[in-house]
């Protein structure tokens, strides 16, 4: 059973969650880094272009100055060359053409691969020129002297520094992303692990729970989160299971107890009858006695079955509108001979409330059981009062007897199966104490409630409340 906990590493929920998070992070980081790289390169290039533009302007100004002093374009170029000779990071080099395409000046500072550069286009433009493993940025501009001579200037710089910055950035990203991923893996596992551990605890404890061990409960986590919800839900499920289970156990033991005694009596009667030779009437008497006991057993089994059918929701009520007061009167009439026999006085106070939508047979059964009990427990010359009080939305039926009453601590148990207020009396009058159980099921099925209270003087009052609007 325990081996199920040691699931395959990659099947583990925390591992899978962390892997998902990490993958998402990797994709996001790659997109983000690519974007940054592109922006950086773009900006760096723009910077280089501005530099070239500025320097070209400077050169043109110098040439104009020299020409104004009566010197040549070449001398202007030389003066500019002096200015830029000290540049280290962006070494500049340039050449000047006449508009006809004739090279006028091309200072040879370093070995510059001019051969790779394009011819003049007589326009203003930027271009990147790859030369072997290096790259150069070129800017071309044309200008006209005061004398009206048109020249074209090509100025260029090597993109070495630019590439170095980009490379540096690239390298940093390559180092940062794995570190981020590692941190994400570690942190993710750590965070994902906590609820997983709690779930494992839950699994472990639930695995331990069997029919013999329904008492165990999960420890509640301190935080009121989803795991807490789960724990509380499981615990309350366990509560319900434990309750039903103990009810079932109690039920089985009650039933076997209730069956054992009458079966024992039956067996005894038959054994005694067979132990000696007898005349036919004696056998007949024994058989009749046995039959009566069996009838009681059958009644009990039928009652139990009815309760079971109510509990499993298999009973469908055949409802119709009927006057409850008429039903009560019929029932009182039915029991009148029994009441007369015990000289009990029945007081009725029945309002003719709105018709109730209910199952006639089942409600008659409720009345039958309530009156039966009331008559059973009310002594000779006692009194029973039945009242029916209706309001807009419900009808209250009260049956009040003047019997022995019930000990307060027993009242809760009165709706339990096989509850007997008085064991000795039940043996005499029959019935297995299922009457009130059945009443409760029927009343519940009608959406009502049933309640038992001791009277101030003597006896009990059973109150049945039935809603008028129950469908």
């Amino acid at each position, binding site marked *: 059973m325990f081996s199920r906990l040691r699931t395959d590493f990659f099947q583990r929920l925390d591992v899978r969650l962390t892997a998902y998070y990490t993958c998402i992070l990797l994709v996001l980081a790659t997109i983000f880094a690519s974007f940054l790289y592109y922006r950086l390169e773009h900006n760096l290039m723009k910077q280089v272009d501005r530099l070239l533009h500025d320097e070209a302007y400077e050169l043109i100004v110098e040439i104009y100055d020299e020409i104004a002093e009566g010197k040549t374009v070449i001398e202007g170029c030389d003066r500019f060359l002096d200015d830029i000779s000290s540049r280290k990071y962006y070494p500049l080099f340039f050449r000047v053409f006449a508009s006809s395409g004739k090279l006028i000046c091309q200072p040879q500072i370093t070995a510059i691969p001019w051969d790779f550069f394009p011819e003049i286009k007589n326009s203003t433009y930027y271009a990147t020129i790859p030369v072997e493993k290096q790259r150069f940025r070129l800017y071309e501009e044309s200008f006209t002297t005061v004398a009206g001579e048109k020249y074209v200037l090509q100025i260029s710089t090597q993109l070495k520094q630019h590439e170095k910055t980009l490379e540096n950035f690239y390298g940093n990203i390559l180092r940062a992303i794995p570190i981020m991923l590692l941190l994400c893996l570690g942190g993710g596992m750590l965070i994902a692990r906590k609820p997983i551990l709690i779930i494992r605890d839950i699994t472990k404890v639930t695995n331990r729970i069997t029919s013999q061990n329904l008492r165990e409960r999960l420890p509640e986590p301190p935080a009121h989160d989803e795991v807490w919800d789960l724990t509380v839900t499981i615990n309350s499920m366990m509560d319900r299971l434990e309750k039903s289970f103990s009810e079932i156990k109690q039920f089985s033991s009650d039933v076997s107890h209730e069956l054992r005694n009458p079966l024992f009596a039956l067996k005894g009667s038959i054994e005694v009858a067979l132990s000696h030779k007898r005349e036919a009437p004696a056998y007949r*008497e024994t058989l009749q006695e046995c039959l*009566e006991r069996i*009838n009681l057993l059958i*009644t009990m089994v039928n009652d139990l079955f009815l309760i079971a059918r109510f509990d499993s929701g298999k009973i469908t009520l055949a409802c119709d509108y009927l006057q409850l007061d008429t039903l009560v009167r019929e029932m009182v*009439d039915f029991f009148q001979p*029994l009441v007369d*026999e015990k000289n009990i006085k029945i007081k009725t106070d029945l309002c003719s409330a709105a018709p109730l939508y209910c199952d006639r047979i089942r409600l008659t059964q409720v009345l*039958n059981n309530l009156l039966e009990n009331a008559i*059973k427990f009310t002594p000779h010359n006692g009194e029973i009062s039945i009242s029916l009080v209706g309001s807009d939305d419900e009808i209250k039926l009260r049956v009040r007897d003047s019997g022995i009453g019930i000990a307060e601590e027993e009242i809760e148990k009165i709706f339990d199966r096989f509850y007997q207020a008085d064991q000795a009396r039940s043996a005499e009058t029959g019935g297995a104490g299922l009457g009130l159980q059945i009443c409760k099921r029927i009343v519940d099925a009608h959406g009502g409630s049933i309640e038992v209270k001791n009277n101030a003087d003597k006896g009990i009052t059973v109150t049945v409340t039935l809603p008028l609007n129950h469908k």
Partner: protein
Amino acid sequence: MRVLIVEDDKGASRFIKKGLTEEGFVVETVFDGEEGLFMATHQQFDLIILDIMLPEMNGFEVIKGIRAKGVTTPVIFLTAKDQQDDLIHGFDLGADDYLVKPFAFAELLARIRAVLRRGQKENESVKITINELCLDRLSRSAERDGTPIELSAKEYLLLEYLMLNAGHVLTRTMILEHVWGYNFDTNSNIIDVHINRVRSKVDKGFPRKLIHTIKGVGYVLKAQD
């Protein structure tokens, strides 16, 4: 009268057969649905008692087969409590009546009589006379030896039910259902008390007692010599 019992519970089958034989019926018993269908469609019976839960073929399938062959023999279903809801289905298929197990034998007899009577005319005589006890169903009154008997409405119904079934035992459950329309068990002896009231009105002061208690079973109203 020939009766076919299709019931797989041998115990139940045996007591029904014994009881019915003693009542003068000729009884055949089979233990599964297939055999039941074969017997019902190949031999002549006056009544079929058919259990619902059967091996091979259930009771519903059997009755379907029987009716499909054009056999109109009356059928009484036997059913366990939890199949009660299916019974409407059974009536649709052409059953005549049903009984819920466990039932009293007297009740089975009463149902059989009722089903067999169904084809003929109901006992519609206005006056029923048993010995010197006379019931007038028109005026809903009774008299014994010319002396009128005061009866309440329910007492009249009870006496009428007993007299219509004179000579046959009626159980408390049957009386409760027939006279009051209640189809549940009561744990009290209320039926006995009602019977005693009627009995005291009918039998008191007469040497020949008509209403008899059959201990453990119920009551019977019987003519005496």
